[in-house]
């Protein structure tokens, strides 16, 4: 359970990046935060994870105030995934995943459970074959999955994901978000995901929070709060909301495309060209 009430946050006093934001993420619920660059999305996650203190407002994460809770306690219940990580090249994938469980404990000892759970989490993401690889041998997308594995191997009650699919291919994007969605429901996790892809945000969330200039522009179930006007206002891009096969899609329209002026060419029924 995550409760955020009238949160103001920023890096310099007098210059808030997040202004008066409130939301609530229940147990087994997933919230997607979207908005343009610099809207304050990551700052909210960093407040929730306890990296920065809010300027004003109240945060409760699993009943704890992150700004007043020791990092050790937070690390055991929160799985935070950064967009990317600067990792020493000689670190192996299995070690990196295990580090998530071992670092908060403070002892050098490794239990066989740590190894087993870490390896099983890698398998869950379909990357157990990478266990012995070094982090610098991986592609950006593979590294992103390893980061996610580190957070999941902790068996967290709270998941905070900063663009977890930004470097993944189309199929992996959906597979990974589906897995996060399922785990959130099965294990009763409270999940907050920051997205740039509005359609992914729609597909795998219970609610979306649309942020612009640090302020909440919309908050609620995607089909209820999203509109083409909102997208136009927040992103400055003309967009259309359509329903295809029962799915809500946001299609961006722009008169700047170099492919303007196509006639309806029955593109869908066309097979692959040889």
């Amino acid at each position, binding site marked *: 359970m995550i409760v955020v009430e009238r949160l103001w946050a920023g890096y310099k006093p007098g210059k808030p990046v997040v202004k008066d934001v409130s939301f609530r993420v229940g147990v087994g619920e997933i919230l997607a935060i979207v908005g343009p660059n610099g809207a304050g999305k990551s700052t909210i996650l960093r407040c929730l994870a306890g990296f920065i203190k809010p300027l004003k407002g109240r945060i409760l994460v699993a009943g704890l105030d992150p700004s007043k809770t020791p*990092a050790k306690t937070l690390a055991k219940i929160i799985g935070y995934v950064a967009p990317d990580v600067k990792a020493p*090249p000689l670190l192996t994938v299995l070690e990196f995943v295990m580090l*998530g469980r071992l670092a908060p404990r403070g002892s050098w000892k490794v239990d066989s459970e740590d190894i087993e759970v870490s*390896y099983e989490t890698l398998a869950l993401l379909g990357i157990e074959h990478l266990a012995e690889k070094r982090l610098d041998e991986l592609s950006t997308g593979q590294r992103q999955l390893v980061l996610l594995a580190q957070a999941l191997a902790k068996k967290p009650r709270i998941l905070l994901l900063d663009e977890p699919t930004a470097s993944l291919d189309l199929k992996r994007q959906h597979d990974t978000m589906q897995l996060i969605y399922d785990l959130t429901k099965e294990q009763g996790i409270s999940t907050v995901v920051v997205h740039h892809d509005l359609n992914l945000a729609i597909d795998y969330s219970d609610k979306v929070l649309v942020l612009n200039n640090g302020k909440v522009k919309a908050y609620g179930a995607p089909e209820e709060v999203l509109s083409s006007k909102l997208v136009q206002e927040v992103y400055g891009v003309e967009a259309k909301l359509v329903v295809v096969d029962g799915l809500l899609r946001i299609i961006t329209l722009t008169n700047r495309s170099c492919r303007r002026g196509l006639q309806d060419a029955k593109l869908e029924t066309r097979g692959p060209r040889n």
Partner: protein
Amino acid sequence: MATHSLAKQGLVVYHRLTRRRRLALAATTLTLIPLFLLDISIGPTPIGLKDVLNVLAGCHSCSETLHTIVWSIRLPVALAAIVTGASLGLAGLLMQTILDNPLASPYTLGVSSAAAFGAALFYVFAVKILPIADHAATLNAFAFAAFACWLVYCISRFKGFTPETLVLAGIAIGSLFHALLAFVEYLASEETLQAIVFWMFGSLYKATWSKLAVSIAVLLATASTAVYAAWKLEALRLGDDVAQSLGVDVKRVRLLAFASSALLTAVSVSFYGIIGFVGLVAPHMARILVGEDHRFLIPQSMVMGAALLSAASIACKTISPGAVIPIGIVTSFIGVPFFLALIVAKKRRYW
């Protein structure tokens, strides 16, 4: 059933990873034994390896002189090489980890120039910082080394005790003491100047049993603390943000490692003078051999440092027969070719 075999597979992978590291650590530790014995055997009066073993085993039929040479000269020096090498290796590793910089060494934060300044104060003005009659140069050096570290800590604390502020504060304080040292040297007479220069060269022949006891105690205390915090130190290598998200109290761990490294360096520099290169290179060699797992990297760095200094101690007695070249001069000659070979042979990026 499927998950059960998966868990088993994970254990197999893990043990395969650690077995390689265990082997590397065991193999390099074993090389310390011949180095140690050779170090005792070689010198102005050569002693056969068999005699060395005999005397060490406490034989009573051996000659009095042999006994004296081994127990009061060779053995302390050989042990000092091992202990100081290990101390510098560990101090260097901790510095590289907390400063997140491959160039960091035990002397990066100005400890060596502060210590040298302390020693010079005694030689030139007979100043004694601590009111103890004996070992004034050593005690002065230690006091100033500790003082410099404390200054660096206080300055960098203003800006959140980050790697950048630590490095910059260390370089500033180091330069300050360097200038002070130069000034004192400028005022010194020719003989005292020579004493200062020789002090700085670094020599293990200053070793005594009481010094050894102190350095062994410091090494054991810092090494066990570091190994206990191995995973936290490893988390620091991922950057402060990630380390914090892994539940590491970044500032506390960094302070602990900084204090440990400062203590190790201050002790070794005030006892034996400035012995360069070991603390910079030993951690890199260790990293190439065992990777980033600090449970192995910490002891491996110590072993590499010990081996390097032991080899240097042997070399400084053999390079020019009859004379013992100060070890601070020799370490680089021994270390550079070995280090470059490792770097060139290793195609992959390792920092």
